[in-house]
């Protein structure tokens, strides 16, 4: 039995979002949406996190930061690109400093569109991400077993 579904801890990083998606992620933690109901905690520390919520585009300066955070997260982990900026670059796609969506830096497991994303969409998206997390956990287990 895997408990990943019951206790997904998240870390949130603001790539170069306009804050719109950002504060919606925070809003999810607060009383009206309260995602702690699903066991979700915003850890703020990559080493404790299972789900990487990232908002905003990837630009020259945060590329390495995003990779660093991703690499410091222990397996199994999933990445959720939150908001149009994160999924595709959105309205800033053509800016000189913008490289594009999150998948230009790290593999993304779930894309949650919206500008700004609604908290409900984030909840739906994270729940969908948990399915992926579960699968990855199972894969990790078999890998461990075979190793």
């Amino acid at each position: 039995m895997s408990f990943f579904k019951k206790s997904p801890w998240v870390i949130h990083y603001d790539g170069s979002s306009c804050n719109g998606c950002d504060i919606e992620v925070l809003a999810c933690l607060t009383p009206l949406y309260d995602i702690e109901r699903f066991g979700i905690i915003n850890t703020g520390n990559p080493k404790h996190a299972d789900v990487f919520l990232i908002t905003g585009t990837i630009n020259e300066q945060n590329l390495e930061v995003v990779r660093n955070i991703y690499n410091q997260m222990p397996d199994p982990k999933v990445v959720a690109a939150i908001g149009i900026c994160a999924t595709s670059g959105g309205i800033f796609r053509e800016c000189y400093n913008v490289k594009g969506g999150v998948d230009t830096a790290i593999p993304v497991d779930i894309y949650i569109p919206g500008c700004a994303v609604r908290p409900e969409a984030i909840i739906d998206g994270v729940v969908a991400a948990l399915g992926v997390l579960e699968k990855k956990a199972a894969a990790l287990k078999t890998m461990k077993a075979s190793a």
Partner: protein
Amino acid sequence: MATRTIVPFGPQHPVLPEPIHLDLVLEDEKVISAIPSIGFIHRGLEKLVEKKDFLEMTYVAERICGICSFIHGQSYCQAIEGVMKIDVPERALYLRTIWGEMSRIHSHLLWLGLFADGFGFESLFMHSWRVREKLLDLIEETTGGRVIFGTAKVGGVRRDMESLTLKRVEDELKIIEKMSHELTDVFKKDSSVKRRTVGKGVLSKEDAITLGAVGPTVRGSGIASDMRKLGYAAYGKISWEPVIETGCDCYARCMVRCRELYQSFDMIYQAMAKIPDGPVDVKVTGNPNGEYFARVEQPRGEVIYYVKGNNTKNLERFRVRTPTFANVPPLVKMLGGCELADVPVIVLTIDPCISCTER
């Protein structure tokens, strides 16, 4: 031997929702120096004018920031209207005022929560955001978006508010105002909050001027500087005075925002009482030609929109100087000699908005 502690504070850091980096040099936990590094959110959107026409840029301006989104849109429109000498219908001006102040309330409530989180007062954070959600419902109902209002438009606003809605909004706002009182009282009186804010991050009146502080940051240092006094939108037609506090510390800046909350409620009530009937936009024809500096009071202070058009669809130059950008030098000053634990508190008292700052 390095004799001091060097700590990278950010860019990813749980107390800061947005990326900002500080090189903190500490001696036990005393901050000897704090050198900021920014640019994590720099997208370069000012240059988008080359690719998007000046009307389309409204959508970009609204997305400079998701917190002060509406006023960005408004400021952009005012700048274009300034260049093109467009007459905006009065109802639109009042609507801009109402939405602008709603946006300020939402921004301040949000900040109160983040500030509380910054000094580890989790329940205060939660309750601030609980109240804020009520306001977001009103915003969503009247604009269609929770954080990106999407109602700014050159020459007016994109949608109207029916008078029935206006009445309901007013009633709801009264409830929200009552709820906010419970929270601002905590900021005002609680001993543990005071212990964390009084005397922290002092910015003297002189420094506030020479370092170019704006918004609640400068008003917390006892200087009445509020761009709404310029009288744009409907601000010239309602009665109000800038809020100032003279404490010069984190507590004073917090108090400025707490009081501004109620000022904003009051402004909305006044605007609702005075709002005339009529159209909410005019048709825009032609292209901008000439330059204009528009100055508007954002929740965090004065924002400057500079536009220069050359009679084509695309602007020649578009520049935004946001309040947080102006508040960075004062921040550097405030951080010197504080405690590590005060770093988030002080950083948060300028209400940093990095996405605004770095565009």
